[in-house]
């Protein structure tokens, strides 16, 4: 059971980081190209959060958003905490604190990638490809 891919969006809805570990159907079969794929993913979550805000009986004022989207296998359990920890301990530590990172701009950082992989493996979310292939 593992992760398929991850998207990190900035507050303007631009995808600043994308990585895929395993994507059984290529982007061409979906949105067409990666850019549209990312845009659609953002749109989907935008709509979902608007929908939730509309349903929410409390009057909540919007909060700056930073979106991390991690697609995982359907048998993965609740990952709320994992996602929170991913932001707190990996994104903030390895990206925000990186002096070369310009806030809001796309980034590439080996340190971040290594930490991300180690973190997901630690949480049992990165398994060998074969297992995943068998699971699809």
């Amino acid at each position: 059971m593992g992760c398929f891919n991850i998207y990190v969006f900035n507050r303007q809805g631009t995808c600043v980081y994308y990585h895929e570990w395993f994507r059984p159907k290529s982007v061409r079969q979906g949105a067409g190209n990666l850019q549209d794929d990312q845009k659609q993913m953002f749109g989907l979550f935008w709509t979902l959060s608007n929908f939730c805000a509309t349903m929410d009986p409390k009057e909540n004022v919007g909060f700056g958003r930073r979106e991390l989207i991690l697609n995982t296998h359907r048998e993965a359990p609740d990952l709320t905490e994992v996602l929170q920890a991913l932001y707190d301990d990996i994104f903030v530590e390895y990206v925000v604190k990186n002096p070369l990172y310009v806030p809001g701009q796309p980034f590439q950082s080996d340190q971040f990638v290594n930490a991300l992989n180690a973190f997901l493996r630690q949480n049992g979310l990165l398994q060998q490809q074969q297992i995943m292939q068998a699971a699809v």
Partner: protein
Amino acid sequence: MLRGGPSGARNPPSLEQINAEVFTLTYGSIVRQLIADFEDIEEVNKQLEQMGYNMGIRLVDEFLAKAKISRCSSFRDTADVVAKQALPMFLNVSANVTNWSPDQTECSLVLTDNPLADFVELPEEYRELKYCNVLAGVVRGALEMVNMDVECRWVSDMLRGDDCYELRIKLKEHRDEKFPYKDDD
């Protein structure tokens, strides 16, 4: 194989600490260097604010990651969070939020202790220097990242003989998030 979710308890996030005197002295030498480089106090004030802004836009992420706060429902809440949680976390002092304007868009953060300005005396020729202006920038930058455009200025400064440090924060706009793409994109 994943069973039963991630290992439960997470370690509390650690905050790196720095000796307060090193911090104060380093800040002092930055200000001194800026004065030497720009030779114009107004320009130094502006640079300090800009430096603070650049810190603020990053620092907010660390704050959100470590402070474990819930959503702020109003500017009032936000001001309290800045005064009672953010300042203690990064500067080890807390502030009081006072002097609200009737329409709740303007308030003051009042500090009686300010580690930035320990050991500092302002010479007569630099009276216009806003020594702690970096803080005004930090607040502006950090709040901008959570969709609040604010204006920050120092209205009292103990270095200039006032009895407290007072940072006036004015909420200019609370931006609603708009969908960044057009329909036909």
